């Protein structure tokens, strides 16, 4: 019998922090960036009845298995974007080369120096 089946307190997800001492919660509204709204819209479209690629449960699964280090490094919608990329690559709908090439093209078009962009999130498959 495993420890989990015996009920020994064991696995606690790094996201499951209810009751832990984390200091006061910031209660001010923050304005969403346009890209954050776009990530939200992408997730809704990926989960609609037509596509059924990534619903809320699958998004949570991807976020909760990306690893604690990456989870803590990324902001809220960066986690969503990393989760979307992970699922699209796992499902064979896009590959990392296509995504990188597209990011490079957009950086060039918008004249964003590469140094200002975040490193590509490394997501290990479970």
């Amino acid at each position, binding site marked *: 019998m495993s420890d989990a*089946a015996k*009920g020994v307190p064991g*696995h*606690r997800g790094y996201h499951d922090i209810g009751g832990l001492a984390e200091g006061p919660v910031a209660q001010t509204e923050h304005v969403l960036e346009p890209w954050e709204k776009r990530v939200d819209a992408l997730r809704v479209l990926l989960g609609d009845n037509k596509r059924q690629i990534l619903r809320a*449960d699958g998004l*949570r699964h991807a976020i909760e298995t990306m690893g604690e280090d990456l989870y803590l490094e990324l902001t809220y919608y960066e986690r969503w974007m990393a989760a979307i990329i992970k699922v699209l690559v796992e499902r064979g709908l896009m590959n990392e080369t296509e995504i990188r090439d597209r990011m490079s093209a957009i950086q060039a078009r918008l004249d964003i120096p590469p140094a200002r962009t975040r490193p590509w999130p490394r997501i290990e498959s479970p």
Partner: protein
Amino acid sequence: MSRALQVGEAVTVDARYPDGHIRTPYYIRGKTGVVCAAMGEFPDPEVAAANGRTDAMRALYRVRFLQRDTWADYAGSDHDTIDIEIYAHWLTPIEEAAQ
């Protein structure tokens, strides 16, 4: 557990700690509360999370716990409560748990 739970019934949350996407908060596992509403049936989020989708339906209940039972160092009123929505397969009626 398979039978429907009744409003007012005392239930204990399983003290299980599996991997994967779990909707039952860590801090409430092993605690005992009272069913205060039946919310209906929904696709099992644990299966849906791992597989992307599921047809398996689970009954969801709103369960009320005393704050003093939930937090070891709770300093508020003894009557303060917290409601948490928990799927049926995490809940055991206390009379069945005692058998």
